[in-house]
């Protein structure tokens, strides 16, 4: 199964940059807040692309992919038990 590969951890780049900058230059808080929202929206774009990819895989493979969130939730519940 190729769907879930190990992540390359790159850290919280945007968030760290924004919080550091907010602390040092308080007059820039407004545009920096916008940048945080922009980052979140770009992430949503990528999520939608991944969703489309899953639907396309369903069409091509004739088999429904397990939603990634479900896999994570199941994993968490088994760990807590």
């Amino acid at each position: 199964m190729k769907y879930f590969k190990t992540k390359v951890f790159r850290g919280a780049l945007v968030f760290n940059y924004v919080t550091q900058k907010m602390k040092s230059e308080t007059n820039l808080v407004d545009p920096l807040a916008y940048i945080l929202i922009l980052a979140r929206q770009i992430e949503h774009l990528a999520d939608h692309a991944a969703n489309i990819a899953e639907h396309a895989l369903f069409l091509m493979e004739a088999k429904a992919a397990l939603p990634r969130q479900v896999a994570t939730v199941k994993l968490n519940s088994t760990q807590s038990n």
Partner: protein
Amino acid sequence: MPHQFGFGMEELKANLTLMSSLVNHQVQQAVNSLTRASSNIYKEIKLKDDEIDAFDELLQVQCENMFALQQPIANDLRFVITSLMINNQLERCGNISVSIANRTKKINAHKNLILESGIVDMAKEAHKMISQVIEAFLNSNLELANNVIVKDDKVDEQNSLVGASKNINFLCPALRDEIF
């Protein structure tokens, strides 16, 4: 009757192709608006978004008609279901593009912050994913669709606020094998 059904499927695919190329263009424009200081981009994107909304409604009606009147089965049924789902996702992408352009317009005076923060790279990666996934869907390219799903994790990582769930994906393949 079979002739009519085939015609409907072709029309559906043609409309979806048109809509996906429109959305691809929109996302590209939104990414461009991050780097370019032009106020016209927002107006253009806003106008094009109405077109995407119209396509969304058209495709929804077409898919509903296919279900109700033609009773598709097997591969055709999967195609209609997928079209309905992808149509929904594409429309959301269009809306997000408008929103990105709108927000970028508001912080036009602080372009240097946008460039420093690294969201331009994220946006370029997201746009690449969208164009790849559209190509994968239209050309039935399995490999490309898989690549996009793997890449999504990278964009999420770039934006993640907490470093938890680092190793969670090691175990997911085992979970999948257990279920299927």
